[in-house]
């Protein structure tokens, strides 16, 4: 068995491992790096439970090799909160009851985060299309949409705030 060395910046921290070329990125994260917030729900790139960001783009980490991500910046659910302070999406999912069993939630939050980076003020249709690669079996999506809407509002307000203070001074 040949292995290759990979060096990935995960949630801002450089992590390294010697891996088989066939190792899936999701297994690198979960098993080599112990970041078990990223889940596996299918084998066919349908469910999105494994969604992470690679170089700023949302990706299904079960459909990417660890070696493909060598040198990349990866962000996972564990990197979303700032210490005790939840990311607005995490807060939104909690406030709006946007999760039940919680298994799809990390992938759903990561995809939503990418969506809001692309489109800070999405319509309900745009939100639903934006998470169409993430399956949830518990919630019927209603409260997930509300959670994303709440977070979008907070993120826009946070974006607007510094500008307002500059104007004021």
């Amino acid at each position, binding site marked *: 068995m040949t292995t290759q060395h990979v060096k990935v910046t995960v949630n801002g921290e450089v992590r390294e491992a010697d891996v088989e070329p066939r190792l899936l990125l999701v297994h690198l994260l979960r098993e080599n790096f112990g970041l078990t917030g990223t889940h596996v729900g299918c084998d066919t790139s349908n469910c999105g439970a494994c969604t992470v960001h690679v170089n700023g783009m949302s990706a299904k980490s079960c459909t990417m090799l660890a070696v493909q991500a060598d040198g990349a910046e990866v962000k996972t659910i564990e990197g979303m909160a700032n210490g005790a302070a939840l990311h607005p999406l995490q807060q939104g999912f909690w406030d709006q009851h946007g999760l039940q069993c919680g298994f799809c939630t990390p992938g759903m939050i990561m995809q939503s985060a990418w969506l809001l980076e692309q489109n800070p003020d999405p319509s309900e249709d745009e939100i639903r299309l934006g998470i*169409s690669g993430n399956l949830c079996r518990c919630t019927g999506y209603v409260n997930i949409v509300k959670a994303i809407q709440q977070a979008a509002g907070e993120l826009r307000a946070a974006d607007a705030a510094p500008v307002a203070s500059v104007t004021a001074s």
Partner: protein
Amino acid sequence: MIPAAFDYVRPADIGEALRILKEREGEAKVLSGGYSLLPLLKLRLAQPALLVDIQALGGLDGISRTDDDMRIGARATHRRILEDDGLAAVLPIMRDAAGGIGDPQIRNWGTIGGSVAHADPAADWPAVLQALHASIVLRSAGGERVVPARGFFIDTFQTGIEATEILTEIRIPLPAPRSGGSYQKLERRAGDFSTVGAAVQMTLGGDGRIAQLGIGLTAVGDAPFAATHAEDALRGAKPGDEMFREAAAAASRQSRPADDSHGPAEYKRAMVTEMTFRALRAAFGRALA
């Protein structure tokens, strides 16, 4: 599901990549975005000894315009194609097709070159490129060849690409004035592969008749193909619903769908008629606009 073992290289330039493909001819497979190849590897339906990852190769992901054509780098993602306003202005069919592929994550990583080289009969690009009379640029250590999209797709997962070649670019002729195109995809659910897809690109002559036409069909044959009978029926004809219906029926007769979970062949043939009709109408509308 775990792939069988393989080696992996990430060459820094295309020369090195082509050299490796030549050295390991028949054992190596090119890896682009991975969203077509990895599922096959996980199912162990493909077991290459070596993956040649072309992500580090520069200059393969651009979208540009020459005097004659639009050039799309093989590593341009579906998302990049979807969001390129310049491309959509000239060839709105490209935005139609890109927007219907997979889901946002797949569009972030999946590439047009990967999809074309993989040649899943239910993938959308092959039919679109045939409707557009596009060409496919293939590079090998020995040089470059440009082949028409029509004829490139031989069978399920089988194309005219050689084991020592890398697909580098798609070239689409610039449409003449009074042109329009549309891709109409029928899917069972968001993110699904096509049950049936119909691609139409049409150019109207000064007399209002159809001067040039391309029709490509997805998922209703061993490989995506051009609906030449329908094209023949319409070329030089006066556009209108009646003609479109007849041509769509001809497209249906030329299709060879299989019974599968997307539906029985009879249903798919009927859907070829409907999707082709819709695409013809939409393309005509855009040609007039």
